């Protein structure tokens, strides 16, 4: 129980994620390099989210420092990253919150 509280406290400090960060984490369920993440995010988000290389590079550094993603190898000068278990917990909690929001907003189409 104490462990649960501690864990949720740890996770809450990363929340809420920006839309871009949430998509980056979702994309990194499998190991990918930067450009792979960009392409995947564009497809997943149905072109609503486009991430620039400067933004993505910075996001990778921050997320790696926070321990939400980790280096998973290298491919011709391109670093590959993948979600850590902590990163998984964070994105899962973020999605849970988004689902609550979406439930509350379900009727707005009729406004």
């Amino acid at each position, binding site marked *: 129980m104490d462990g649960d509280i501690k864990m949720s406290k740890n996770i809450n400090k990363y929340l809420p994620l*920006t839309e*871009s960060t949430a998509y980056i984490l979702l994309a990194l369920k499998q190991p990918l*390099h*930067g*450009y792979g993440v*960009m392409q995947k995010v564009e497809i997943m988000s149905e072109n609503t989210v*486009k*991430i*620039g*290389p*400067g*933004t*993505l*590079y*910075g*996001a990778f550094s921050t997320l790696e420092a926070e321990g939400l993603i980790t280096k998973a190898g*290298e491919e*011709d*000068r*391109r*670093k590959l990253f993948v979600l850590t278990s902590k990163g998984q917990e964070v994105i899962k909690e973020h999605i849970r919150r988004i689902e609550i929001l979406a439930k509350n907003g379900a009727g707005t189409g009729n406004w």
Partner: protein
Amino acid sequence: MTTITKFHWFWAWDDEKEEAWLREMSQNGWHLSSVGIPGFYKFDQGFSKDYVYRLDFIRDRKDYDNYLQLFIDTGWDHLGEMGGWQYFRMESINGENLEIYSDNESKANKYQRILLLLVIILPLVINGLMIVSRRRGISDVFGIIFIGFILIYIYGITRILMRIGKLKKKI
């Protein structure tokens, strides 16, 4: 091919003006070929093109290849580096606005990196000026240069802080 070297001074906080100037040069058929010495730009003459230029600021050497590769994969050409400033270029089709930063928060981080460097090297700059003044004796001329330098420094830091503030408010 005709090549020219132009001198134009831009302060660190005027990077967007620099980007606009380089784009204008390309629209007039002068394309940046390399940078090196601060303030000096080499241009090659060619057909008029709508090239968008973007300047990033990064001094990390350990991860430089991986960093550049990400930009190249995205379609940006890397033209060179000048004191941490990275010059990127991509052709804009139909006037499309091309960005390397897709949100204000990460753009603000770029200015924070510049600010950090300025703050770190300030004591070194002051120290250097002190050593020179001790050797040559403090003349009036040197005193004015010294004060002028410090004022520009403070002004620059203020401008960059203002830019960061503006970007953070837009988040």
